[in-house]
């Protein structure tokens, strides 16, 4: 038969209790701080995502087009672009680019910012436009084309207010 002798535990002193509480609070604060730091980091990461992830791809496509074209026209809509109605040089969502090919023909492609998407179309020889070849970006807040001093400029505004302007002159 065993008999355990229970000893009386000593209680914490006030000082010990204070220290332990402070340490606990410090641990809690540090945990919260680290948590906030991570949130801030993720927020910055997210904020930069358009410029770091989307914009380079946009740049790759747009630079293949803007500055390589032999002619350009700006319009308010795709239907205007196809019918060559109301061409202008002021800020417009649609840009027609014409390219001279080695066989002497001229072909056109269209960049159009419509419903929040920057689409790229190749105009077939028949002139009847089909669906877009691809969407260059769906995250831009705004895309405007305009001419300044003979240079075609493409102003790309990101979802967080970031702004890049691509430029090209006719060849």
């Amino acid at each position, binding site marked *: 038969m065993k008999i355990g002798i229970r000893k009386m535990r000593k209680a914490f002193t006030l000082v010990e209790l204070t220290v332990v509480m402070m340490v606990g609070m410090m641990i809690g604060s540090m945990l919260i701080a680290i948590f906030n730091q991570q949130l801030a980091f993720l927020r910055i*990461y997210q904020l930069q995502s358009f410029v770091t992830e989307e914009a380079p791809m946009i740049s790759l496509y747009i630079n293949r087009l803007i500055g390589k074209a032999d002619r350009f026209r700006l319009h308010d809509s795709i239907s205007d672009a196809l019918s060559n109605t109301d061409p202008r040089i002021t800020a417009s969502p649609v840009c027609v680019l014409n390219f001279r090919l080695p066989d002497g023909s001229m072909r056109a492609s269209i960049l159009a910012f419509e419903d929040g998407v920057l689409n790229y179309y190749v105009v077939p020889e028949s002139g009847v436009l089909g669906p877009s070849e691809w969407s260059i970006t769906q995250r831009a807040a705004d895309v405007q084309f305009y001419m300044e001093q003979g240079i075609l400029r493409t102003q790309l505004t*990101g979802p967080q207010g970031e702004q890049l*302007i691509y*430029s090209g002159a006719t060849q």
Partner: protein
Amino acid sequence: MIEAVLAMGLLTIIGLILLKLSLNILMPRQWTVQQTITNAYMSYERALAERIPFENLVASNSPWPAFPTTNSENVELGRLPGGRLITGTVTRTRMPYENNFPIDGGSGTIDTNPAAMKVWKVQSVATYTIGGRNYAKSRTVLRSQ
């Protein structure tokens, strides 16, 4: 108590690791951001160089003076998230093709340059600093007559 102190110490170490990790992730993105924005701006420099009338290009008040003279200007490269302006310095100059006639800065003759071409390399260089390092991005355009 001991465990709590150990926990604090561990927390401190974890915090520092996470901070370092965050910086390691964000710093290269700074490079990417700067490159992307500078690339976009440099397309403008290229277009300007292609479009400027040749007469203006070779004039005494040309935006691209003949090397070793250069022309520097603070320019707006673009805007960061939140609309914050990002600026940089662009330096412009132009250099003659060696086969130009002497009057056009080269050493060509009628034997080497029978077509009497005048060719200039028009160069714009954008310089910026990231993390204490100096970067330069260049665009060269050839103009000829």
